[in-house]
């Protein structure tokens, strides 16, 4: 079997599949994102249900914007938006054949992802310090579940992007178009993570 390993390459990594008109990786990542919409959608739906059925929201009184740290979350929104443009510029650099620029932009994307997590860490530890946990009430349960799941997605993005920036870059030497498509697919995922936060931020912090 190993003799055929070289022939058993996954097809349609660069040239489009005749049925979809897309490289398989891109079609695959969109199907994955569709499942992600349902994952976050189900939790968002739960949030809407719990909130509309609650006598007061947040249950402890006051406003969400007084309980959660709006300036830090605004900063994090700007950080994620910036990481989205650095991600798209990393892909564009590949398209233009500039692997040096790709390293710069991808490094910036990963750096900004860590900034987001560090800010989130401060937000969480502050809440824990004040004795607020997911079990405190429905408000904190929803807050920690949604932002926690989103944070896990940020960590996932960091892992994939770090792979592309380090050992994954080897593919650039043998197949530039294939590598560029991988960066594009990682980008689609990353923009989705940004997109989820765009909805989470006003829903949880501002309303």
């Amino acid at each position, binding site marked *: 079997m190993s003799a055929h390993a070289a022939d058993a390459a996954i097809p349609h990594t660069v040239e489009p599949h005749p049925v979809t008109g897309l490289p398989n990786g891109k079609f695959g990542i969109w199907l994955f994102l569709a499942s992600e919409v*349902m994952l976050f959608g189900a939790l968002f739906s739960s949030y809407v249900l719990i909130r509309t059925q609650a006598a007061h929201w947040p249950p402890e009184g006051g406003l969400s914007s007084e309980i959660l740290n709006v300036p830090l979350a605004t900063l994090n929104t700007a950080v994620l938006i910036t990481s*989205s443009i650095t991600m798209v510029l990393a892909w564009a650099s590949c398209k*233009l054949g500039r692997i040096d620029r790709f390293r710069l932009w991808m490094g910036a994307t990963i750096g900004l992802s860590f900034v987001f997590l560090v800010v989130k860490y401060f937000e969480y530890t502050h809440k824990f310090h004040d004795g607020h946990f997911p079990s405190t009430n429905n408000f904190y349960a929803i807050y920690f579940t949604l932002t926690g799941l989103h944070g896990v997605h940020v960590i996932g993005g960091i892992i994939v992007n770090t792979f592309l920036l380090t050992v994954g870059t080897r593919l650039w030497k043998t197949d530039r178009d294939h590598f560029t498509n991988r960066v594009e697919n990682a980008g689609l995922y990353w923009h989705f993570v940004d997109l989820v936060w765009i909805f989470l931020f006003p829903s949880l912090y501002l*309303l």
Partner: protein
Amino acid sequence: MAETADHSSPEEFKKHLGKYYVVFVALLCLTAITVGVSYLKLNRPLAIAVALVIASVKAGMVAAVFMHLISEKKVIYAVLILTAAFFLLVLLLPSFTVFESVAV
């Protein structure tokens, strides 16, 4: 065959980069607006409507430009229409159960 219509040469492709910066600035401005509006302490239904409209515009820009949905293959649109339909169903599902419990 692998070549797509929107970026045939590096020079041509470079011209498209400007729109990424435009969207980037627009997203930052809309973030500032949505935070600013929250300080106006509008009544809740209006505040929710304004925040969700702004978020939808931002999400639309990310999807259309950063994720290139503005010029994507039909099969992706088909997948997303199906996803949107199921997402709406999931959003509306609780309201069906609420009506039921009220009726009992």
